[in-house]
């Protein structure tokens, strides 16, 4: 399901130079509508700076970032096109959550009723009249999402929205974002929580040290790394290892008594075991997980710059 092309996000040779630090370095990627795109990178990789440039809050040193072909600052009534959640703690401590939303409604010329509707959407109605300083981190994240949804935007940009959410909150967020993408909206979510992204995202954009490392559908990125291995359990490990070696595969004994085989598909291993009359108790293809891929891709680029 693909939405109109006009909702796509395009980052084009974007760079940001702070005094000594090149926070974002010639970064280009694009984000399609109708899908959830995970924007991944270690802490300090330039994710937040990139999103802030995309939203016109930080001026790029060079390059361009557009949403639906236009810069954010040139959009007419931007929050009706783009909703953004940038930092969970961005509301006045002494103001109620409902008033925080109403304040945005007034500035944007939206009716106050939108504040109540989005509070309902994020399940925050009971806390709407409480002051922001009494909110838990999870409630702050929900308020941020409510603010982003005020203008019913076609494009959503979220910076680390899962931070501080409990497992139930994470699940709620995942379902919401997936549903919004399924409606054809563009959803760009930054995170360093890889496990969560593996479940949530359709596409990933991986950055490290301000540079693009890899971009594509999650499955492709995982597959391309060739980390696929097959876990085999057998009462005759020696015989199987011999059979596999003749196939050109290698088997590594694991602490739990199983063998981890690389260099052969599960079907080939099963066939080799069958012809060598080796009994198998388990034969599982282990998909590479995003975390491994991520660590391999960003090796040596992560850390404090």
């Amino acid at each position, binding site marked *: 399901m693909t939405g109109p092309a006009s909702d796509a996000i395009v980052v084009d040779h974007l760079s940001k130079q702070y005094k000594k630090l090149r926070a974002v370095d010639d970064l280009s990627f694009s984000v399609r509508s109708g899908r959830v795109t995970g924007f991944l990178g270690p802490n300090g990789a330039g994710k*937040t*700076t990139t999103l*802030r440039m995309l*939203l*016109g*809050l*930080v*001026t790029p040193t060079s390059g361009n970032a557009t949403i639906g072909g236009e810069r*954010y*600052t040139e*959009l007419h009534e*931007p*929050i009706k096109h783009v909703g*953004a959640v*940038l*930092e969970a*703690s*961005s*509301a*006045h*401590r*002494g*103001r*109620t959550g409902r*008033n*925080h939303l*109403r*304040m*945005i409604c*007034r*500035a*944007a*010329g939206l009716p106050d009723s939108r504040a109540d509707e989005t509070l309902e959407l994020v399940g925050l109605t009971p806390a709407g009249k409480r002051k922001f300083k009494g909110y838990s981190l999870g409630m702050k994240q929900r308020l941020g999402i409510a*603010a982003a949804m005020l203008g019913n935007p076609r494009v959503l940009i979220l910076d680390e929205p899962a931070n501080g959410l409990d497992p139930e909150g994470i699940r709620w967020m995942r379902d919401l974002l997936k549903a919004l993408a399924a409606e054809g909206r563009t959803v760009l979510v930054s995170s360093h929580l890889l496990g969560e992204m593996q479940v949530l995202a359709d596409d990933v954009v991986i950055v490290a040290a301000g540079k693009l490392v890899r971009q594509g559908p999650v499955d492709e990125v995982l597959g391309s790394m060739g980390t696929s291995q097959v876990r085999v359990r057998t009462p005759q490990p020696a015989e199987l290892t011999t059979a596999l070696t003749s196939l050109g595969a290698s088997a590594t004994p694991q602490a739990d008594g199983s063998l981890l085989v690389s260099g052969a598909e599960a079907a080939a291993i099963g066939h080799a075991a069958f012809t060598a009359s080796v009994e198998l108790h388990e034969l599982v293809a282990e998909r590479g997980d995003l975390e491994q891929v991520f660590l391999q891709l960003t090796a040596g680029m992560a850390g404090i710059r």
Partner: protein
Amino acid sequence: MNLINAELFKLRTTAIWWIMGIVLLPLYAASVLANWAQFASTNPDQVSDPDQAEQVRAALEPINVATTLYTSGQYFGVLIVLLLSAIIVTSEFFHLTATATFLVTPKRESVILAKFGAAVIVGVLLWLLTTLINLIVVPPIMSNLDLSNQLGEPAVWRAIGLNLLAFVLWAVLGVGLGVLIKNQLAATLILGIVYVVGTSAIGLIFFLLTEYVAQWFENLQVLIPTSASQLMISGTDLPGNPPRWVGAVVLIGYAVVAGFFGTWLTKRRDIS
């Protein structure tokens, strides 16, 4: 208009407006009483220096007493307007709401203009409040001083009008300075201290310069914003002081410079 509405909404949905109100009321009452006491007890014949005696005599003319009393509370009212206007800007950074604000309105000059508008409205409201109370409490004080209420004098109404101009100009100044001193704590402390202590300190420096360096330094004293706004609302031209319009020009100058520079800076700044 939406944006000014939003700015006023921001102000009245937090505790700051009534905190400032609670601070202002006793200070205002104190300044009315102080003015009253001063006029009730001063006698020009007790002043030895003939120049000063001349000034005191002029200040004690009924019309000048009236303009001072009917604009009572200017000193502290303006201070509160200055601080509130600065906080209208600094609280966005202090409470990290600048992100939300500039996401709704990426054209930052519009946001700053709305803040100028909201601050001016706050200034007008405070002027209205102090002026209304003055119009109620000053006539009895005037009769206590054995003076008529002077409300028929155009000079009184001109002073009240110029007092409004002072409130408005200080509001603009506050927003501009709030942009320049982004840190809320620093802004309130610096503006508060400079306003209260700085005026006397700079006044002392000017006094010393005038006494020991050159007489013409005295004429530059009007460059101090507080002196400028006091000069602006004085009833008649007091001897030894520059004309009133100079005070207005100085204040407008500061407000315009702070306003333009603040807007320019906000447009350039990265919000993070």
